[in-house]
């Protein structure tokens, strides 16, 4: 049986977590030759409050579409982090926004903490790019999709006028994650 790789993107409504999930899935299944299934929190949750998107990536067929043992999770808010971190599997990765998530959860996973939103605001002038920065970081941290696939996926999804900004955001993500990794090294 081929290897499943499970990702969860979490934050609050309006932070573009679902789009992040979709782009990750597209990077895997359209631009890399893998399979991917994307699903999301739906319903009452989608009206404010914590929001999450999940992506399962595999070389083989993907049966169960929901995340159960998460390889990598992103949390952009404290609420989302506290609510969802429990499914991270041993040895998994948790990436959080360091300004938002102050109560860091404990567990048998590697924790990366970084001021993602603040970086988005300061370096790109728009907090909404935090999700793209995150995608860059996760690509770099996990290697679950290639950089090229992620680039293609992002460029295909974002509207023309914002292309440059998002290109930058993604590269920034790659870069910052590389630094983080090195630090942990």
């Amino acid at each position, binding site marked *: 049986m081929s290897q499943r790789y499970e990702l969860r993107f979490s934050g609050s409504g309006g932070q573009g977590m679902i789009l992040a999930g979709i782009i990750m899935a597209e990077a895997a299944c*359209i631009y890399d030759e893998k*399979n991917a299934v994307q699903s999301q929190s739906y*319903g*009452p949750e989608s009206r404010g409050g914590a929001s999450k998107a999940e992506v399962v990536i595999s070389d083989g067929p993907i049966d169960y579409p929901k995340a159960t043992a998460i390889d990598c999770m992103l949390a952009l808010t404290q609420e989302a982090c506290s609510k969802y971190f429990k499914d991270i599997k041993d040895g998994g990765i948790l990436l959080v926004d360091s300004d938002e998530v102050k109560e860091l959860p404990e567990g048998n996973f590697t924790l990366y903490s970084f001021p993602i939103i603040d970086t988005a605001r300061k370096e790109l002038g728009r907090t909404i790019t935090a999700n793209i920065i995150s995608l860059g970081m996760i690509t770099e941290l996990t290697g679950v999709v290639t950089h090229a696939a992620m680039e293609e996926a992002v460029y295909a999804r974002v509207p023309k006028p914002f292309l440059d900004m998002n290109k930058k955001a993604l590269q920034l993500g790659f870069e910052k994650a590389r630094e983080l990794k090195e630090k942990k090294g």
Partner: protein
Amino acid sequence: MAGNKVKRLIQGNEACAEGALYAGCRFFGGYPITPSTEIAEILSVRLPRVGGKFIQMEDEIASIAAITGASLAGLKSLTATSGPGFSLKQEGIGYACLAEVPCVIVNVMRGGPSTGYPTGPSQSDVMQAKWGTHGDHPVVALVPSTVPEILSETVRAFNLAEEYRTPVFILYDEIVGHMREAVTLPEPGELEIIDRAKPTCAPEEYHPYDTNYDVPPLAAYGEGYRFHITGLNHREDGFPTNDSALIEEGIKRIIDKIEKNKDKILKNEEYLVDGADIVVFAFGSSARSARFAVNKAREKGIKAGLLKPLTLWPFPEETVRKAAKGAKAIIVPEMNLGQIIYEVERCAKGVEVAGINRVDGEPINPAQILEAIEKFS
């Protein structure tokens, strides 16, 4: 990326809309309801582009009526709904069955009964699909479990509707409906498209229920065949009758046209079923969990297999009987409190049949199924 083909990551509901367009659907009548609404939303944009019509009717009853009318006027027609709307459509579904009007009805299943849990997935309308309307009537229902399957099964649903002049249901749960998977859109000509048989006889000789056929050809209104359609029991020529023999003959024929052609309508996927000790009978998103569990069980050396119907109605009686023969137990996971298990029990005489059920808006997870497999192995 396979050749020039377009591969896209799309939602289940989007795949349904794509399948409908591919199959030649040119009319959608519906009323919004969670979690099926995306189908309507997409078709409201896409249908006019191909010259088709989208109409948002005043309710679900009007929706099934409108698609029946549109189909009689010659257009391949679709409606999509969820539990409460499916309940409301029942009378109109019976009409389309008796009047033999091809059309496709999608039910994206959510938690019930009543308004229930609108955003929660469920598989609890599968028996309703068979018995929901009054009177004996034919039922064809397809139950895809992946996004690509939703597309191809939607095409198949239209084909079956047209070939057998009958309403066809597509039933899937909210999970599959809202999940995104990669789909390679079929190119024109790649999948077979069936259109209803139209009469070739002279208009004066045309009988919309000609008993010389299992499935009589269907003229379209306004094309020179001035025929009569009614929801009363009718004769060959479409006019009402009180003649007992004709009434019975009429009802039997609409049921027989499906029964006789079961072989062509049934579609199952068998995964490691041959020689399996434990067979899991599962459909929709439960079948995904089941395959996962079967694989895990095989890893543990348990001879488990998955029988996944794509056609749920008519029920694959023979297939279940056969699978039951060698097996120790059949496990039936369903996101309801036990529905299809009734059918499995009926067909799988002598073998232990056990259900796994939940109605809490959560999918049945592979671990639950694996546990049951282990228990019976």
